[in-house]
């Protein structure tokens, strides 16, 4: 939250995304009427937002640290396939989930080994690990969807079908995770260093911080939550292992995280923003569907939203930086 407590106007800017969210809800409530704002639909929106939010929680910090992780979608599909395969092999669901999460952690370790230890560029590294994860996801069941038998009776499945005070459990879990993540981001060394790293890696290293560890943690968390998200989707949506589910998340995941960068820490990916971003996107999908628009309209609107947000944030950032000796081209 630092660097942004400068003027009253900025404080308002931090909440602009929240305004967008309210606006989206208001607009669709007006256009679609009761169908949109009825509890049932709101809960569905929360459920969808919660699932994707869990999936990109870790990604948020990788992007926050100014690195890239293009592997999260494929890690999610790989985890979903491992999970499905183990369940069909009569493994205990909790055990299967644990194993799939470990697969995620494994990919995170591989990525961070290459990025931190061997100083690979993170984008190309994660392209490579994502290729590998996607390949494994396909090899596990010859590239086909693997439906899970007898899932309905599993306790884990039932658990994900439950609600708490009327809220879908996925959303409640997401809220819990994000609250914890917010504390980690704002109150601990990890969060403190992530954003310092993003700005000046050398400064952090020279200050004696083991920046490698921070990055490792970020990459491992990104893959871990991708795997977690993959399992959540298996349990709440797919009911099957999906070797190519990754393509559903790639663009949406990045859009959410970058949209979120407009909240709280102007221009930097952060968990509060990501959560709001996920809500905005889910509300958008729901509302546009009610208005009879397919995915392409949503695509254009998301793009416009994103670019407007970026433009506003950039303009504001420029205002707060003292004019001084800015060169003409800048």
């Amino acid at each position, binding site marked *: 939250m630092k660097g942004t407590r400068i003027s009253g106007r900025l404080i308002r800017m931090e909440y602009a995304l929240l305004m967008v969210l309210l606006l989206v809800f208001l607009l669709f409530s007006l256009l679609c009427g009761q169908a949109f704002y009825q509890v049932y639909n709101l809960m569905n929106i929360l459920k969808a937002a919660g699932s994707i939010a869990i999936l990109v929680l870790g990604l948020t910090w990788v992007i926050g640290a100014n690195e890239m992780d293009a592997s999260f979608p494929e890690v999610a599909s790989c985890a979903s396939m491992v999970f499905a395969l183990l369940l069909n092999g009569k493994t205990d669901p909790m055990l299967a989930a644990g194993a799939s999460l470990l697969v995620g952690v494994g990919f995170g370790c591989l990525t961070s080994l290459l990025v931190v*230890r061997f*100083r690979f560029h993170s984008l190309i590294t994660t392209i*490579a690990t994502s290729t590998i994860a996607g*390949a494994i996801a396909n090899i596990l069941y010859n*590239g086909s969807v693997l439906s899970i038998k007898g899932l309905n009776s599993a306790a884990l499945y039932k658990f994900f079908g439950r609600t708490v005070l009327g809220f879908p459990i996925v959303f409640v879990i997401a809220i819990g995770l994000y609250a914890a993540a917010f504390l980690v981001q704002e109150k601990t060394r990890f969060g403190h260093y992530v954003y310092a790293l993003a700005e000046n890696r050398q400064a952090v290293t020279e200050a004696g911080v083991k920046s490698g560890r921070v990055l490792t943690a970020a990459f491992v968390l990104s893959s871990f939550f991708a795997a977690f998200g993959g399992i959540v989707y298996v349990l709440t949506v797919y009911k099957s292992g999906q070797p190519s589910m990754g393509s559903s998340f790639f663009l949406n995941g990045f859009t959410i995280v970058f949209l979120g960068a407009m909240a709280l820490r102007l*221009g930097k990916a952060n968990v509060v923003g990501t959560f709001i971003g996920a809500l905005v996107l889910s509300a958008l999908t729901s509302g546009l569907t009610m208005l009879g628009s397919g995915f392409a*309209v949503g695509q254009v609107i998301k793009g416009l939203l*994103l670019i407007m947000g970026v433009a506003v944030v950039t303009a504001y950032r*420029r205002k707060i930086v003292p004019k001084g000796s800015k060169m003409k081209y800048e």
Partner: protein
Amino acid sequence: MKRYLSDRLPVVLFALLFLAVVVTFQCLQPTFLSSANIVNMMQSVSTTVIAAIGLTFVIAIGRSDISFYMSCCFCGVLMAWLVSLGWHPVPAILCGVAAGAAWGSVSGFAVGKLKLPDIITTIAIGSIAFGLGYLFSDGAFIMQNFIEAKTHYLSQYLVLGIPLPVYVMAAVMVLSYYLLERSRFGRAFYAVGATEKAAYLSGVNVNRTIVLAYVICGTLASVAALIMTARQGYGNVKIGMNLLMPCFTAVYIGMSVFKRPCVVGTALGALLVTAIATGFTSINIPFYVSNLVTGFVLILAILLSKVVVREKQPRMAAKEAGRT
């Protein structure tokens, strides 16, 4: 001499890796190195190379472009639609390329002039371009007039036994090599990518260079999309959706081997990935197995280039040496 060697070592190691891949496939499938298959590989790699060279310009100025693979979809649809209206393919192609340049200049304007952050802005612009292309075509395949207009000549026509896209690729490579690495104009791209303020004070027109890089990227991506549309024999809005990863892969392999974004490196990177994919196809192994190998070869390729870099970047290497 030593310095010469240490600069060339990654290239040599990369060549060895490439050789290993080629020899392996040649042993598995004796026709792998037949002239027909080489031509075939050249043809398949041509579109990746063309688009990736465009991306090379953007990477050279120190930016990223996540829009080209989506905006070129728009161009493919536009060309297909014009062909379906009964246009001659040549003006239709020109319109498609112009649209690519236009989308590139939108990204360039946003990043270069408005100074918006590159990745997020280009994601947004790409989404809009793709969404519009999709809305325009309604996602349908556009097939009318394709056979009659002989658009497949663009991808099939043989000159001296070699299909046209290979010539287009060669022309793009030569021109880009000249422009980026030999001519005085190319210096501006590297200068902007290095230190922007210093480049500006050294007389480089920074903003124009940024815009130009994005325009080149958008244009070349549209050329690739048009060739792919012609090869496919129908207009499909998703034509470019799979260009993103191969292009970035190609550019970064080239960068790790040659230590800077460059045309030859990009082309070699693309060729390595295509050789693996083609090799596996020719021995009937599904794509996901070949992807597993591609992923590991990719890591290996960069690892090899680091063998030497570690010595050249003492700051971290020394620290790590101290720790172990």
